[in-house]
């Protein structure tokens, strides 16, 4: 996705062009859904949150000062909504109104490709490794690591999203990569080839 293209769309949306905002949604909906889904691990809740995030983005777009910063701004809204959702869920779970679903297994949700029997086992193994790794990260390390390697944000975008300095982001990223490197089981897993990947576009 071209940053310049998004910037032009944002400026058109500022001028009241509804189609421009629809195009922005189409360009970002997959990555925002992925961001939310990995953090709350519930497809239905993720769908509701993604809707909520784009509604908020639409409403507060006039408050965005720099169209080049749209992506980190949108990610910031998304992360805030995810944190609000988690807080609300914990509170409701505390009151016994709802079940706390933090540990829902992502491997139980169907991915966008058709998993074979072997792949299903590998997926469960992969997510088990991810869960183990996530537990070793601090909150900020986890956030920085996923934004960098899963959401593919650069250091500056991560800093803008998390409202931290670039050097702070680098420090967290350095620690997270060290922990990732120490995880021998995950390294071994990643060195093997998965059947589903043979047909997947990168």
């Amino acid at each position, binding site marked *: 996705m071209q940053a310049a293209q998004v910037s032009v769309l944002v400026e058109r949306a500022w001028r009241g062009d509804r189609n421009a905002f629809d195009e922005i949604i189409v360009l970002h909906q997959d990555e925002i*859904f992925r961001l939310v889904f990995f953090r709350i691990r519930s497809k239905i809740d993720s769908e509701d949150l*993604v*809707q909520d995030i784009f509604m908020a983005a*639409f*409403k507060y777009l006039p408050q965005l000062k720099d169209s080049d910063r749209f992506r980190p701004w949108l990610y910031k809204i998304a992360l805030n909504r995810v944190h609000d959702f988690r807080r609300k869920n914990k509170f409701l779970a505390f009151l016994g109104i709802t079940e706390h679903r933090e540990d829902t297994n992502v491997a139980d949700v169907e991915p*966008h490709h058709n998993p074979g029997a072997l792949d299903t086992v590998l997926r469960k193994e992969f997510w088990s490794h991810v869960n183990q790794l996530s537990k070793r990260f601090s909150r900020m390390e986890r956030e920085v690591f*996923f934004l960098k390697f899963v959401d593919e944000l650069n250091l500056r975008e991560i800093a803008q999203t998390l409202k931290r300095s670039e050097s702070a982001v680098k420090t967290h990223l350095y620690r997270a990569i060290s922990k*990732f490197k120490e995880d021998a089981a995950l390294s071994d897993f990643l060195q093997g080839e998965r059947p589903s990947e043979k047909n997947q576009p990168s």
Partner: protein
Amino acid sequence: MKKISHLDEKQIIEAVTDERGMDGALRSHLSECPDCRAQKEALQGRLARFGHISRVEAPLDFRKPRVSQKSAAALPPVWRIRPAFGMGLGFALILALLLSPLTLKRDRLYTQEVVYREMLQDEKFMTEIEKLEENPLPGFYVGIGDPGDDERDIQTPDAMNDDSVGHDGGSRNA
């Protein structure tokens, strides 16, 4: 420029984190040394693979978001959008309620009433203490003879004259 043998583990991680931010000599070594470059690329490869698998795993058949003018207008009120504003407003309301003339007046009345009631209770309590100082024994001992009298002559109060009470002071109807 000083000669560097090989990059250590920390420097490899540093290179993966932000190669451009590295020391010039280290960066130059990294570009020339195939061993160090291979180490860095291996770690980068594992991280890229991690990201790739994670992205592939996300379901894409989700309900696509739609923003209509009507639904955008139904967004939450301003206090939810700006939590600090909402909290400030709430605090100001509580403060206004506490400092309102009606509340202050009620508080004053309440305080006077409580003080008056406590004074009456103190007075009653002091009267009881005075009575006890005059005669510390309970009512049914009043009129009993001197403690030096023969035990057989002592009048047993009605309350104690119950057959069900044992001589050893055991429980009733044991």
